[in-house]
C-alpha cells in the first residue's frame, strides 16, 4: 500500500512543489542573467538583491483582474492555459532525478515512475500542449492571438518532428525507451551520449529552443510583431499559467537533455576511477547542476540573438534540421549494425 499509493503521492507533491519553486526562481534568474549581460542590475528592491521578487510577482498576478474579452469563447478561453500547463507538469513523471536511494530503511527511486515508453511519453504529452496554444489564440476572438497561435502551433509541430527524430538516434544508441535505462546505458558505455550523438544534441537543443518558444525562435509571442502572440488577451492568473507553462517547459527540455545526453544523475566521467571523489556529491545535485547549466544557456542565448522570421524558422526546421536528423539516424543505425556484427 505504501509503495503503491503513499510514496508516489509524496514524490508527486515533492516534484510539483520543487518545479513550481524552481520556475519562480528561474524567472528571477532569467531577469538577473539578462541584467548582467545588459549591464544593469535587474530586480533589486524586493528583498536583498531582489530574492523575494518572485513572491511579489505571484502575489501581483493573483490579485490582478482577470479579464475575459467580451466575445471570447468563455470555457475554451479558461481551459486553454490549463491545457498548456498540465502536460508540462506531468512530463516530470518520467524524468529520473536520481537512482534508488535508501530513505528510512526503504529503497526509494528518485523518480516518480519508470515507464518502458518513457521517452515517447514525453513526446506525447508535449503534443497535447499544442492544443492550449491553438485554443487560447482562437478563443480570444482577436486577430493577433489567432495569428500567434497558428504560428506557434505550426512551429511546435514542425520542430517536434526534428526533436523526436533525435530521440530515435538516442534510442538506437541506448537500446531502450526508458529514461532510467538510457541513463544506465550511459554508465555502461562509460560515455555521455553528448559525445556519441553530438549532432543529435545540437538538433535537440535547437528544437528545444523552438519548442519552448525561446529566442531566437520566440515568434509566437514576438512582442514587436504580434504584441504578445497567443496570450495577448490574457491577464492575471490565466496569463500566469501560460507563463508558468513556458518556464516549466524549459525545465522539462533541459532535464530531458540532461537525461539523454549528459548522463542524467551520473557524475562527470562515471567510469574514471581517480575522479570517484566526485561521487561524494549526491546524484540529484549533479542532475540539478547539469539542468541549470543548460537553462543558463537558454537565458544566455535569449540575451544575445535577434529573432528569426517565421518563414526562415520553418525553412531551418524542415530543410536543415529534419534532414540532418534523418541522416544522423541512418549513420547511427549503420554504425550500430557494423559494430554489432
Amino acid at each position, binding site marked *: 500500500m505504501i509503495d503503491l499509493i503513499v510514496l508516489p503521492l509524496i514524490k508527486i507533491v515533492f516534484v510539483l512543489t520543487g518545479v513550481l519553486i524552481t520556475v519562480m526562481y528561474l524567472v528571477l534568474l532569467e531577469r538577473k542573467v539578462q541584467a548582467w549581460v545588459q549591464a544593469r542590475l535587474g530586480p533589486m528592491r524586493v528583498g536583498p538583491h531582489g530574492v523575494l521578487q518572485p513572491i511579489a510577482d505571484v502575489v501581483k498576478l493573483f490579485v490582478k483582474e482577470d479579464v475575459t474579452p467580451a466575445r471570447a469563447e468563455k470555457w475554451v478561453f479558461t481551459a486553454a492555459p490549463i491545457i498548456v500547463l498540465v502536460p508540462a507538469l506531468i512530463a516530470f513523471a518520467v524524468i529520473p532525478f536520481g537512482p534508488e536511494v535508501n530513505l528510512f530503511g526503504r529503497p526509494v527511486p528518485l523518480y516518480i515512475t519508470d515507464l518502458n515508453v518513457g521517452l515517447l511519453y514525453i513526446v506525447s504529452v508535449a503534443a497535447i500542449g499544442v492544443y492550449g496554444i491553438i485554443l487560447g489564440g482562437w478563443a480570444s476572438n482577436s486577430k493577433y492571438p489567432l495569428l500567434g497561435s497558428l504560428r506557434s502551433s505550426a512551429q511546435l509541430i514542425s520542430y517536434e518532428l526534428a526533436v523526436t527524430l533525435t530521440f530515435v538516434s538516442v534510442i538506437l544508441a541506448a537500446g531502450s525507451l526508458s529514461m532510467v535505462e538510457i541513463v544506465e546505458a550511459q554508465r555502461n558505455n562509460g560515455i555521455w551520449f553528448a559525445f556519441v550523438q553530438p549532432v543529435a544534441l545540437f538538433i535537440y537543443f535547437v528544437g528545444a529552443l523552438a519548442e519552448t518558444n525561446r529566442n531566437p525562435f520566440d515568434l509566437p509571442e514576438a512582442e514587436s*510583431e504580434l504584441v504578445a502572440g497567443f496570450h495577448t488577451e490574457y491577464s492575471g492568473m490565466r496569463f500566469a499559467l501560460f507563463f508558468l507553462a513556458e518556464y516549466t517547459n524549459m525545465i522539462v527540455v533541459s532535464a530531458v537533455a540532461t537525461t539523454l545526453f549528459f548522463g542524467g544523475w551520473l557524475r562527470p566521467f562515471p567510469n574514471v576511477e581517480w575522479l570517484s571523489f566526485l561521487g561524494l556529491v549526491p546524484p540529484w545535485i549533479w542532475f540539478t547542476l547539469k539542468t541549470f547549466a543548460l537553462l543558463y544557456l537558454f537565458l544566455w542565448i535569449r540575451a544575445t540573438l535577434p529573432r528569426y522570421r517565421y518563414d*526562415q524558422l520553418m525553412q531551418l526546421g524542415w530543410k536543415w534540421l529534419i534532414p540532418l536528423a534523418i541522416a544522423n539516424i541512418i549513420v547511427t543505425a549503420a554504425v550500430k549494425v557494423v559494430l554489432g556484427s
Partner: protein
Amino acid sequence: MEPDAGRSMFDTDELVINMGPQHPATHGVLRVVLKLDGEKVVDADVVLGDLHRGVEKLTENRDWTQIVLLTDRLDYVASAAANLAYVETVEKLMSIEVPRRARYVRTILAELQRLASHLVWLGSHAMDIGAITVFLYCLRERELILDLFEEYCGARLTYNSMRIGGLPQDVPSGWLPKVLRYCDVQEEKLVEYETLLTQNRIWLQRTRGIGAITGEAAIAVGLCGPSLRGSGVPRDVRKDEPYAAYDEIPFDIAIGSNGDTYDRYLVRLEEMRQSIGIIRRAVEGLPEGPVMAKVPRLIKPPAGETYHANESPKGEIGFFIASDGRSTSPYRLRVRPPSFCNLQALPQLVRGHLVADVIAIIGTIDIVLGEVDR
C-alpha cells in the same frame, strides 16, 4: 497552374490588421493598417495624426525666441538638430553672421545629437528584430551624451540649446575633454554593437534584401537622410549646402549600394563613426571668440520668406518661414520633417514582405512620431 504573383500558394482570406496605434513596435502612436494574405503584406496604409499638437500653428502666437522651444518637441530624440535648423533659418532671414566659435560648438552639439539619435535608432531597431541587449547597450552610451548635454544646457531631452545669432552660453570649462573622452568610449562600443549584429547570421537573414529600394525610386518617393544614402544616393545637406562649420571640417558621406535594411544599418553605423571624427576635429579646431552675434533684443525679421534645410539625424529637416516684418512672430512657419517624408515610403517598402519585416522596415526608416505629426 500558375500561382499568381504576390500571393501565397494557399487560399486564405485577406486579413486586415491594425498595427498600432497601441503596438509595441510602431515607435509611438503610428498606426499602420495592413492588409495581409496569410502573413504576406498585400498593402499597407499609414494613418497619421495621433500625436498632432499643432506645432506649426502654435508658432504664429509665439515670439521668435520662444519657437526654439517648440522645435525641441518635433523630433524629441534629436531636438538640438531641429533647434539648429530653426535658428539658422531665422538667421538667414535676418542675415545675421554667426561667430565662428558658435558655429563650431553648434557642429559639436549637432553631431552629438546625431550620435544620440542613431543610438536610439540602433537600439530600438535591434530590439524590434529581437536583440534586446543591443538596446540597453545603446541607451547606456546615449546616457553619456545626455550627461554632456545636461552639463552644457541643463536639460537632458528638450535642450532649447540654440539662440538666434549664436548660443545661450559658451561651453563649460572641462566640457571639451569630456566630449573627447566620450568619443573614445563610443568608438570602442560601436565595435561591441557590431560584434552582436553585423556578422550575425540571423541579423543578416532578417535585414538583407528586406525593404530594398533603388536610388531613383527612393528619390521619387522623397526619402531623405541615411535612408536615401542607403540606396546609394550621395545626398547630404552637410556637404551639398554646408551650414554651421561643416564646410571647414572634412568628413565622408557613407553610402550603401542595395538600399535594403542592412545597407541602411551599415550607413548609419558608418555615420556614427564619421560623427565621432567630426566631433574630434571640431573640438581640436575650436576657435576662440564670442558665441553670440549682436542681435537686437526684440527680434523682428524683415518681411519676406525663406527656406533653409539641415541634415538632421533622420534626414533633411527644413524650415520655411514667412515673416510679415511687423509682428514679433512668424506669419507662417512650415516644417519639412524628414520622418514624415520618409514614412511615405513605408507602403512601397513593405509590400510583398511578411509581417515580421514590417517591423524591421519601420525600424529602418527611423521615424519619430513627434516629428511626423507635429
